[in-house]
């Protein structure tokens, strides 16, 4: 069937921003924020940028920031997609505990490591799929749907480990948490690969556009012929996958699965990272690399607080201050006050 089509793009809006990727990148507020935090760290601790080569791998505070920030960065990759669909996944911390528990129990009961890793990732996929089914088939609000698994998930993880902290000495699992590849810590390598792959898949295909469409208006997307439910299932399953990977890293790092504390409150850090990265909680436009950058900003602040001698609890106060500043910057109120701000301008 052919129909005359008209170009309905409004002419008042420029079709695309001018593509000056590098200059554009360095004027992003997130990049400036990260640079500022790193600068403060450098002033507090002059050796901050020193990176040394020892035993075939890099050492230094900067590498440490990357390494410690990797689990949250990986969670943030999955979380970005979920938040872009106007959802949220509160269960990722609990899923981390489950995947760590599965891997640890499998290797301690004699299964080969590759099977344990597969099973842990499988557990994460199942958890994500469960969330997705609650959100799509039962049409439950995402916060609540994932709350079920957030509450029950730690219980399940403890059920798997039977209440103990299961320690292991399997070289493969430990390598995932503490090994190194080309001099970089393994968690950093995994996070980077995941980020690049996810960004490529989302941006080189129509997937990213479709996710944004669902996030902006789910019914409209469905009427436009998108299978919104299938997309949501994929997105939540992917978030579960990311959580499983992060859980493996954390378990490998401490050489054990701690069902109570693995990934505790990390879901909130991941959400914060995504919000810092400029993805709106109301769905729509999203950026995976910016969310990863957000995770790095959080970790750089944590490290800065630690090396400046404040107690680690001080982190929470700083974090809340950051959220408050971002909220004020992103609110319609300040957008009205400062009309010309380029980055808060998300017109409705």
């Amino acid at each position, binding site marked *: 069937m052919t129909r005359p089509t008209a170009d309905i793009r409004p002419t008042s809006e420029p079709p695309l921003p001018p593509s000056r990727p590098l200059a554009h990148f360095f004027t992003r507020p997130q990049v400036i924020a990260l640079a500022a935090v790193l600068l403060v760290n450098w002033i507090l601790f002059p050796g901050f940028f020193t990176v040394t080569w020892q035993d075939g791998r890099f050492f230094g505070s900067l590498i440490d920031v990357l390494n410690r920030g990797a689990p949250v960065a990986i969670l943030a990759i999955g979380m970005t997609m979920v938040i872009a669909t106007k959802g*949220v996944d509160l269960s990722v911390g609990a899923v981390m505990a489950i995947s760590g528990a599965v891997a640890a129990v499998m290797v301690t009961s004699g299964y080969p490591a590759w099977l344990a890793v597969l099973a842990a990732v499988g557990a994460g996929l199942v958890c994500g799929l469960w969330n997705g089914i*609650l959100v799509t088939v*039962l*049409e*439950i*609000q995402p*916060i*609540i*749907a994932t*709350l*079920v*698994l*957030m*509450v*029950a*998930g*730690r*219980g*399940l993880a*403890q*059920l798997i480990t*039977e*209440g103990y902290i299961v320690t292991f000495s399997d070289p493969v699992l430990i390598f995932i948490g503490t090994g190194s590849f080309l001099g970089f810590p393994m968690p950093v390598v995994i996070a980077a690969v995941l980020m690049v792959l996810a960004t490529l898949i989302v941006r080189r295909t129509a997937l990213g556009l479709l996710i944004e469409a669902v996030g902006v208006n789910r019914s409209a997307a469905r009427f436009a012929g998108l299978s919104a439910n299938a997309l949501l299932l994929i997105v939540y399953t992917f978030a579960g996958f990311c959580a499983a990977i992060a859980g493996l890293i954390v378990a490998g790092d401490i050489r054990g699965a701690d*069902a109570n504390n693995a990934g505790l409150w990390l879901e*909130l850090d991941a*959400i*914060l990272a995504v*919000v810092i990265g400029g993805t709106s*909680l*109301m769905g729509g436009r999203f950026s995976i690399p910016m969310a990863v950058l957000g995770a790095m900003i959080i970790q750089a602040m944590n490290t800065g607080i630690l090396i400046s001698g404040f*107690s680690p*609890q*001080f*982190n*929470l*106060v*700083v*974090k*809340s*201050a950051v*959220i*408050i500043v971002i*909220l*004020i910057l*992103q*609110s*319609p*109120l300040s957008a009205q006050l400062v009309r010309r701000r380029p980055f808060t301008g998300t017109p409705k």
Partner: protein
Amino acid sequence: MNRSLRPLLATALIFLFAYLLAVLQHPSMFSTRVLGNFLTDNAFLGIAAVGMTFVILSGGIDLSVGAVIGFTTVLIAVLIMWWQLHPLVAFAIALTVAALFGAIMGAAIHYLKVPSFIVTLAGMFLARGGASVLSPDSIGIQHDFYTAVSKSYILLPGGGRLTVVGMIMLAVFAVAIILAHRTRFGSNVYAIGGSETSAALMGVPVARTTIGIYALSGFLAGLAGVVFSLYTSAGYSLNALGVELDAIAAVVIGGTLLTGGYGFVAGTFIGVMLQGLVQTYIVFDGTLSSWWTKIVVGVLLFMFIVLQRLVFRAGPRRT
């Protein structure tokens, strides 16, 4: 009967059925002692859940509840032990601070037009962080007032004790039921939960009500902190970790719709009691481990969400 009462009835029936099953297995659970302990042990959760009920009725969510409880316990401990204030003065200060904290969050939610989820998340970080900045260590409270309170109770027939803490919770529920169902503030909360735009068009003072709701939630979280402080005689910044989740679970199990606009405060009471029952049953059984509590509460949460979907899908469609 009125179909809107069905979820409440379902919750009540499930509680009675579960209690009956528990009593059949452990006859000693049927005593006023156990019931009295239900009230005492879950008092702080119940009080916090009342505040959460109002927030959820208005279509929002308050993640800062647990952190505010923790902060209040530390503040009270600091005021009593370091500043030598009388506990009642300390309570008044702590309640004022908690209510103001909630009011500020409410104002931020209304005027900055950001989701309540992210504002209260910031509030949670701030309260937890503030508490650990006040004192990173646990502070024990020794005061005659505390000993007097912990020794005063009403003896129920059968040897059960209705403690002061339990009575505070019952009083809070009684006042909250009147506030929700018999006052203008209550109907404004329901109106905002139904649809904020319609409520504003009908002349509901949205700004004042939103700030009031979060101030109330903050105040009740503060009161829960007072109760927690009386219950444990200590202040610690990590007290009541994750209570916000238990409170949300209690509200949902109690039949309140998470999209707002529908629910009963009385349902929340049953939701809290049901969680208490699960914990007590696990203690009585002895062979089950404590993590079963989390799993059972998660399963209950899931059941009630599905139940709500079914009941409201069968009803007349709104869209």
